[in-house]
């Protein structure tokens, strides 16, 4: 035994029956210290992760106001909300009628037109295809509006109807309706 000065249990803690009390205490102590340190490390990681979430100035810009006065029936405008396009469409009576006449059974993501608008003339949707995030065509009069006279996404061929609902193509969901409210008859606030 005396040939080494390295004490028992120096490098590998396990398997020394000679001092069970000391071993247990060391193990318990070491474990609780390690657990404590692990909590500390965990707590340190959080600020770094959190710093990558939207900063406060970004969150503060999370609402956009839109003046509806210049948008004639049949026209649409695109506004920017949180860096994304939002389609505001002043729908014609025919478009509203087609949208409301569509049976839910024909829809991939069933939702009534009524549930998607606050005032029937005004459709407000986030202009981001629910497939992989492209911006669908259909805002300009010259754009292809797709088979259902709504929007058509050129990336992978999704067709949306006049209520912004997915009808044909790979997109799984309808165009999202953002939180918005009418602050007056001629103005909405998105977000």
């Amino acid at each position: 035994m005396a040939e080494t000065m390295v004490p028992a249990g120096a490098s590998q803690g396990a398997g020394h029956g000679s001092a069970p009390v000391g071993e247990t205490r060391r193990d318990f102590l070491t474990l609780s210290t390690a657990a404590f340190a692990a909590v500390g490390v965990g707590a340190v990681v959080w600020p770094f992760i959190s710093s990558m979430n939207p900063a406060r100035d970004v969150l503060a810009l999370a609402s956009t106001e839109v003046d509806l006065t210049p948008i004639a029936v049949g026209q649409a405008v695109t506004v920017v909300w949180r860096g994304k396009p939002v389609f505001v469409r002043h729908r014609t009576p025919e478009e509203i009628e087609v949208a409301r006449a569509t049976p839910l059974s024909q829809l991939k993501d069933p939702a009534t037109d009524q549930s998607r608008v606050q005032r029937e003339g005004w459709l407000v949707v986030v202009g981001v295809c629910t497939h992989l995030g492209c911006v669908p065509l259909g805002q300009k009069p010259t754009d292809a509006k797709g088979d259902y006279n709504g929007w058509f996404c050129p990336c992978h061929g999704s067709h949306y109807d006049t209520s912004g609902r997915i009808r044909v193509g790979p997109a799984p969901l309808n165009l999202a309706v953002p939180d918005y409210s009418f602050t007056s008859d001629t103005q909405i606030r998105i977000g």
Partner: protein
Amino acid sequence: MRDLKRGFRNLLGALALGAATLGGGLALTTPARAAGEAIAIPDAGFSFAGFFGTFDRGAAQRGLQVYKEVCAACHGMYQLSYRNLLEIGLSEEQVRAIAATFEVRDGPNDMGEMFDRPARLSDRFRRPFANELAARAANNGAYPPDLSVMAKARPNGANYLHALLVGYVEPPPGFTVAEGMYYNAYFPGHQIAMPAILNPDQVEYADGTAATVDQMARDVTTFLAWAAEPETEQRRAMGIRIILFLIVLGGLTYAVKRKVWADVKH
């Protein structure tokens, strides 16, 4: 026990050298700044001074009023947004109302033109001048600096700002003050382009506090100190928790170390 003492002495020795290095660093920078001409800045005894102080919300709100009604004509606080005012205890309605009293430039609109509109929560504090040259032109060649971080941009920031604002006194005999300049007891060189802008009862405080010059100076300094370091209170609270945690962890670690080394003669 001897081991403990020796280990401890060792640790202290190493720490002492580190501390000396650090202390050296500190000792040097502070006097260096004051080296030119030492003007003693009186300690105003602010609530946020010291290691554990907090901002007096009432004072900060009154200070905002002073800034808004007096300082803002010339000094911007560009790093702040109106939404930040929620942090000094104002309600969202109050802050919206304050913001709406300022017109900020926005645009371009659909016609491609810039336009003015009332400020919103997300807007930054309005800049009083379009650019530095415009500011100089309007102020006899002097440039009123931005006040966002002023409290940490001057040595002994808060006390200095307070002293400066109350430091307009008669120049000592024989001291000539240049044209367009004002004598100030605490400004480096004593000649400042800013006139004594605070006069008794210049603002009317809603909470009935008497608007003496000293009171207004204290309040606006509190506001500026908050604006320069809005994280102060959160930082100190977090610091206490983290240091307490580290002390416990340090005790545990030291116990583990003692246990590990118990069977080594040294």
